[in-house]
């Protein structure tokens, strides 16, 4: 199959994420994370000063990685991935993952992408980047 043509500034498909108590519970069980800010609302408000249960930062990292891997499918691989949570996101928030092609590092083979998670007011709550290589699968 021919490699897709990738253009600078090309947007990646966006996806809406609405985590629930159940999905947060399953995520934290899957990664064996007992941090109470993700499931104990009373503790989270009283002792950690958050208004609601906190959506895991690495879960948003995963959504950014998915944004790339779903777009790439089997046409290439992520060889470097970086993310940072810039603002807490809370249970009940509607979040959107997305990104765009920033630059070509190696002629039509290696590209740098910019990634983000935004809240419903279009504020970035997490940002990231990925280096993709179209010569490996």
């Amino acid at each position, binding site marked *: 199959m021919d490699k897709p043509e990738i253009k600078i500034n090309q947007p990646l498909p966006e996806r809406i*994420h609405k985590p629930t108590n159940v*999905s947060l519970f*399953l*995520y934290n*069980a*899957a*990664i*064996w*994370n*007992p*941090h*109470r*800010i993700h499931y*104990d609302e009373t*503790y989270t408000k009283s*002792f*950690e000063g958050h208004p609601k249960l906190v959506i895991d*930062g*690495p*879960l948003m*990292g*995963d*959504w950014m*990685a*998915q944004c790339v*891997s*779903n777009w790439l*499918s089997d046409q290439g*691989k*992520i*060889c*470097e*991935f*970086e*993310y*940072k*949570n810039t603002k807490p996101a809370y249970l009940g928030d509607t979040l959107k993952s997305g990104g765009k092609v920033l630059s070509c590092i190696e002629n039509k083979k290696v590209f740098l992408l910019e990634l983000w998670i935004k809240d419903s007011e279009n504020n970035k709550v997490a940002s990231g980047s990925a280096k993709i290589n179209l010569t490996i699968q």
Partner: protein
Amino acid sequence: MELLTAEHKKLIGKVSMPLKVDINRSDIIKYSIATEQLQEKYLKGNEAPLMFVFNLFTPLVTLASLGKDGLNTKESLNVDLPLKRVMAGGTKINIFKNIYPGDKLTGISKIKNLYEKKGKSGLLIFMIKQFSVSDQFQLKVYEETQTVIYR
């Protein structure tokens, strides 16, 4: 006032004992469901998604070892710092090969840097950890550089 003493600074360069994890299909499937994966290769557990590696090597300790916040009171490098509340900072992962069920991974953690910085609500401690992972054939699988913020 400085939070980190000369003793704390000596932790820079500290390396953990090798940690071992066996990858199994069921864990990949559970992770993929919880993260709302769309691709069949992940949902069937044939391959692990990139971020499956997060917390993969977390030490499995008894309930008595968990603090009030639910977290392990000592992390894998057994570091006791003056600030106790933990926040995840940035993470960078270099990926060298895919992870499959049946893989037997070995990871070694190292403290790359430890410093303090003034934040909006006071002093914060930043720990930069590097985690290097290889498989049963001694092939490099990934390297993760993580910033952990203590507040």
